């Protein structure tokens, strides 16, 4: 029975002290213990009714507090449930939008209106289809990453490796894009840098997102600077772009699921609103820290640090 209880609480993904089942058990135990204590000391102290009253008041107070925590724990569970529904709502909206675009775009291509359209309009429609199938793919990838992370189904085997090599690997993936858009990335990693001990798969996702963001939001022709440094106990990665930046009022929401800064939407930079959420989820799981500085119109610097482990 207690085993069941713990596994049930674990399933809720909330701390034990917020789990109603656990709290009910505590309350039950407390009532039993209090009654027993009452019974035994009652034998000797019953002569003074004030002491009895005092004990009853104390017991009632503790019960009240536990009851209050239980009510609160139900609220936490209800809130988690509400957030789940909300998440499903947003996901379905985000998935339907590119689907609608694909459907309506192809319907136009099949209609007789299409025959009578000029080349420019025709090209626009092919762009819509290309862009939205792309968007769908990125969105599904991001959602699957989140699901796998949350269910612990990701390859999280740790190993020692050089962060610099992994960065170069990720940059290689963007090579043709960088060339086509005349963007330059400078990687500054001086001196001997220690190896990190982490999951390469996960860290690669972090780098892909941060480097991808810097590239996507940068102004054309501007340079992106990546640097690697270390202090006593941590390796610090920073990436600096001269892009559109994040408006001050949006900065506190930037790691939230599906949040996209107002200027990113306005300037029609493609994005799912999931990238930085994933980055934070991963870094949190490996004792990493992430922070940033950003100014609207000037650009952003994103940094993260990881603990150094000696081989």
């Amino acid at each position, binding site marked *: 029975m207690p085993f069941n209880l713990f596994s049930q609480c674990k399933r809720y993904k909330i701390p034990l002290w917020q789990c109603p089942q656990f709290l009910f058990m505590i309350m039950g135990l407390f009532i039993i213990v209090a009654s027993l204590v009452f019974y035994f000391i009652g034998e000797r102290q019953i002569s003074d009714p004030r002491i009895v009253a005092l004990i009853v008041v104390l017991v009632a107070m503790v019960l009240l507090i536990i009851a209050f925590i239980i009510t609160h724990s139900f609220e936490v569970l209800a809130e988690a449930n509400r957030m789940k529904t909300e998440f499903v709502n947003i996901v379905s909206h985000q998935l339907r939008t590119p689907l609608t675009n694909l459907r309506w775009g192809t319907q136009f291509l099949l209609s007789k209106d299409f025959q009578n359209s000029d080349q420019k309009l025709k090209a626009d429609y092919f762009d819509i289809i290309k*862009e939205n199938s792309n968007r769908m793919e990125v969105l599904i990838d991001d959602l699957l990453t989140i699901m796998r992370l949350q269910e612990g189904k990701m390859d999280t085997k740790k190993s020692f490796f050089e962060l610099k090599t992994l960065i170069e690997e990720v940059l290689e993936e963007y090579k043709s894009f960088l060339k086509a858009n005349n963007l330059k990335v400078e990687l500054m990693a001086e001196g001997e840098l220690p190896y990190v001990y982490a999951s390469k798969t996960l860290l690669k996702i972090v780098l892909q997102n941060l480097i991808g963001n810097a590239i996507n939001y940068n102004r054309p022709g501007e340079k992106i600077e990546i640097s690697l440094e270390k202090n006593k106990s941590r390796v610090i990665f920073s990436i600096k772009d001269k892009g559109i930046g994040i408006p001050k009022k949006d900065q506190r929401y930037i790691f939230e699921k599906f949040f996209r800064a107002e200027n990113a939407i*306005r300037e029609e930079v493609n994005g799912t609103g999931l990238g930085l959420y994933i980055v934070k989820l991963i870094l949190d799981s490996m004792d990493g820290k992430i922070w940033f500085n950003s100014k609207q119109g000037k650009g952003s610097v994103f940094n993260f640090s990881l603990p150094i482990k000696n081989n």
Partner: protein
Amino acid sequence: MKKILFIEDEAAVQKTLGESLRKAGYEVQSALDGELGLALAKKGEADLILLDIMLPKLSGLEILERIKQDEKIKDIPVIILTNLENIAEVERAVELGAKTYLVKSNYGLEEVVEKIKKVLNGN
């Protein structure tokens, strides 16, 4: 020529549906965010307003509320065009005075154009 004000932040939807409405013989004015949409609505030139719900700057429901409070434009029919799963929110739009709502992914392009035509001819 009847004029449609189309408030929708998705450039692709603006293109696909907007173009089809133009081909069907309507004049279509586009607004890509809520603030611009409301400003254009207040001019009172449109015969119909197509309104998305999830919009930057000002949500579709807020726009709808303000349209209905404005004596000058409160009788312009509004059709809600959305992809929201949450029907409660969409139905609230109808309570607020929207003529009807269309869930984008449920309809083909031609069906949506037909439905818009119907509302326009009903006036």
